[in-house]
């Protein structure tokens, strides 16, 4: 996938995933890799780190029934605003693309 398009889309997808469910890192990376097999797991990790640093996502340690606590990611208020803007942009672009006739 083209790097420029990919960057925005992946951000949006990860933000959406963690806005629906609070997930731990491994889960997010695996799930995203299923949808985008050509993107490496550690790339998703790098994106998660950036989202966390930028303040769109935050982490906390969730208690597990067995084993050590895992690091969970959840969306912040700032992230929600950003996600809304991203989705709006995305819908806008895809409708334009459809209008042109690309299906």
């Amino acid at each position, binding site marked *: 996938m083209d790097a420029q398009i990919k960057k925005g889309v992946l951000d949006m997808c990860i933000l959406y995933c963690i806005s629906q469910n609070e997930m*731990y*890192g*491994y889960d997010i*990376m695996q799930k995203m*890799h299923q949808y985008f097999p050509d993107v*490496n*797991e*550690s*790339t998703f*990790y*790098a*994106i998660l*780190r*950036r989202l966390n*640093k*930028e303040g769109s996502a935050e982490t906390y340690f969730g208690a597990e029934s067995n*084993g*050590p606590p*895992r*690091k969970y990611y959840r969306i912040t208020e700032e992230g929600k605003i950003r996600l809304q803007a991203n989705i709006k942009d995305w819908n806008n672009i895809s409708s334009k693309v459809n209008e042109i006739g690309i299906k």
Partner: protein
Amino acid sequence: MREEKFISELYLRLLWKCSKRERLEILHDMKEYFEIALSSGKTEKEICDELGSPKDVIRRIEKEEKQQEPNDTYTLEWLGRSIAAFAAVAILGFLITQLGHINFVILSLLMPVEGCLIWYIFGGKYFSSAWLMEKQETELKKILVLHIVYFIISISAAFYFINSSFDCEKWMWFVKEPSKYGLCLKNILLTVALLFVVMYVINMASFHKYTIAWYSLAIHAIGSICMIFGFLHMLSRISDPIQIIPMFIKSMLIYAEGVILALGFLYYSHKLIKKEK
């Protein structure tokens, strides 16, 4: 085994790149990833293939973060290297100002060797600690041997200094009871030197790869301390006008060499950074 290798390589590669907090965070996340993936039935090989090499992982993280902030981690990296290079040269300065004529000849022969060593260990990106990791074990051992040689030279020089040219009365010209303080200092120096030998041997035996980078730094730091002592020693001889001139020229030359080397490192690393951008 693969996991261990992955984590230790990651650790080594991160040493120069980020703060301790960030390093621990990344290592923790990767360990967690391994743990969960293993419990879900994947093999260590599969997990390593999934994540890519530690180098790739760091490259991806850096790529993501580069858009966010300018990379001042590199600034730290080349600053650290330049300081280390300067300190390394300082020990030579100390040796030359301290030792007699015969030793001076030997040392001038050793000088290029030391120069090569410093470049070998600290010379920019390609000779960084991460670079060491990429090399095979034999390469690593070679570097360790070079280090031992270097270490023996510096320690024997330190002992030489302590035992033969340590003139308490003259040296401690700034304290009122010279011999008392001088002896005290001598003992401290001896203890430090011995402790260092013991630590070095222990760690050599356990053969921890990532400690090598720190050891080279430690050796050079001790060198710079010796330099300060050497300089004080020189100052204490100011009363002798005939000796001061050649000594002054000698030490200035050595300082100049240190500065040139440090600037060379700065320039070289800066060029590399530019190229990478």
